[in-house]
């Protein structure tokens, strides 16, 4: 007679959400790959000056050399090492993306939250401003602003914040409009809480999930737009190894494909990484809209 296995299965007690480790466990594999790629770029930004690379601004070899063991991604028209320049390019692109997304989130979310919470006049004014801004194609608007302010990465960043904040204003306004109808908000008011406390303590903490997801995805988009502006000469100025301007240099020398290949792959990896990570975060935080 065969022994049957005992049927009393151990039921693991359901664990409480214990912060970042639990979040990591729930992320899909693609998101983990994205996070790893992003981490790679962040580490690069922090440590690239210590790497045993050629000086990105020095002419270290002959012009237009194809990839070789000595120059992994060849050399450009001025004999500079493309691999070194690509890695150093992260110092420009990644921090700019961080700053632009942070500014856009702060400005947009604040205005959107105020518009949604107070309604009336402030809502009309802020949201019409948003409508006006988003009615322009983003690249065109960024180009126009950057052209008015003059070339340079600082001005390009300002241009990008101007293009980006309305998205966050709309997101946050929609969230606040939804959450402020929750009964616990009314309960807080009935408990004697003031308006700013209600907004800050009882509404905003419930609203940040879509913003976080969107900000992650936009990170890559900002890198792309920054490169685009540099490509057309409105961002970084020539000697600096910015990805967009490097591609622009490579674009005129099509047979030396490696000049554009390095920065191109860099941009691709950042955009892909944030896209993967953003998708994963949405699965975890904001299941309804996924």
């Amino acid at each position, binding site marked *: 007679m065969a022994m049957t296995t005992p049927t009393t299965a151990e039921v693991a007690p359901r664990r409480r959400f214990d912060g970042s480790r639990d979040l990591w466990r729930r992320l899909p594999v693609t998101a983990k790959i994205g996070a790893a790629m992003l981490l790679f770029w962040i580490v690069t930004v922090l440590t690239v000056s210590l790497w045993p690379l050629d000086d990105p601004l020095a002419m270290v070899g002959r012009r237009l050399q194809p990839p070789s063991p000595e120059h992994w991604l060849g050399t450009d028209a001025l004999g500079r090492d493309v691999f070194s320049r690509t890695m150093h390019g992260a110092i420009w692109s990644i921090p700019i993306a961080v700053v632009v997304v942070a500014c856009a989130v702060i400005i947009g979310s604040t205005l959107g939250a105020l518009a949604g919470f107070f309604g009336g006049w402030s809502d009309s004014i802020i949201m019409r401003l948003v409508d006006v801004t988003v009615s322009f194609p983003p690249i065109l608007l960024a180009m126009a602003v950057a052209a008015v302010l003059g070339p340079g990465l600082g001005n390009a960043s300002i241009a990008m914040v101007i293009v980006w904040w309305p998205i966050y204003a709309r997101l946050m306004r929609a969230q606040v409009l939804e959450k402020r109808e929750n*009964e616990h908000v009314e*309960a807080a008011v009935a408990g*004697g*809480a003031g308006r700013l*406390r209600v907004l800050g*303590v009882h509404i905003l903490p*419930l609203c940040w999930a879509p913003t976080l997801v969107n900000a992650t995805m936009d990170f890559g988009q900002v890198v792309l737009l920054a490169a685009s502006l540099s490509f057309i000469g409105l961002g970084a100025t020539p000697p600096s190894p910015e990805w967009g301007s490097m591609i622009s240099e490579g674009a005129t020398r099509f047979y030396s494909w490696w000049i554009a290949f390095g920065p191109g792959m860099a941009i691709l990896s950042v955009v892909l990484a944030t896209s993967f990570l953003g998708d994963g975060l949405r699965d975890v935080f904001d299941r309804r809209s996924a």
Partner: protein
Amino acid sequence: MTAPLLDIRDLRISFRGRDGTWAEALCGIDLSLEPGKVLGIVGESGSGKSIAMMAFLQLLPRGTRVEGSARFRGEELIGMAPARIRRIRGKAIGCIFQDPLSAFNPVKTLGAQIVEAITLHDRAISNRAALKEAERLFELVAIPQPARRVRQYPHEFSGGMRQRAMIAMALANRPDLLIADEPTTALDVTVQAQILELLADLRRELGIGMVLITHDLGVVAGIADEIAVMYGGSVVERGATDPIFYQTSHPYTAGLIGAVPTLDSRGTLQQIEGTPPSIFSRPPGCSFHPRCPRAGAPCRIETPRLLPQGDTACACHFPLSRLEPVT
């Protein structure tokens, strides 16, 4: 006779409809409550029972017209400055809501929310002392293991425990008046009984006045000192609890009582035919007349006033006489 804790006189509330006309949701009600007493307000959905309470706490949406008077401890609440009403809300008047899950902030622990409720009105108290107070309140409302429970989130509580926590929060600042808006509707019957018992205990121990809003006569029967029955934005019958049940005058009240199932009732349950009128299309005269078995010609023309009728006050042209058996 002591001064009333809450004294509502001719309170009227109107909402603006889509076409810009004003519709009266509350057509001038009078209610009063003495300290430490329990007033039950009974009525169907849309009878105006909740908005009457929300009106004097100024919780109604902007653009609502509120007229009349509501005095709390002699102080006029209607039209009170927002900064002053805020010091009364949650301090002298506590509120309990229908759905205890949605009435808590889901991302804060219950302890933190009670601490917030306390510190809002008492700047001097330390967070630690407020948390101790939260534990004491949990004990008061019979939540086991209060020290552990205050560190938990609303979703970790069962429905009945959550409602207890809500009552604890409403009591946080030792209010004189507790407004309970359908406190047991979201709970199942056994838990409902426990919560009502808890409310009765608290009233006895702390001497809090309560307004208990419900659509269930059974809920108020055991706990209320006085009952006001509302229909279509008016109080149709008002009186002490026993006469309301045993010497009913208004046909609507009689209908409600007849619709309560009892263990020894046989056959089909009585029901009141039809549905309550929308506030945008109230019938002229007595708003109950289209559904009333006793309606006559004057009911369609003249709105009856609330007049003493036996031991209760009743707004009806053809009240049930005391001698007539309640059907």
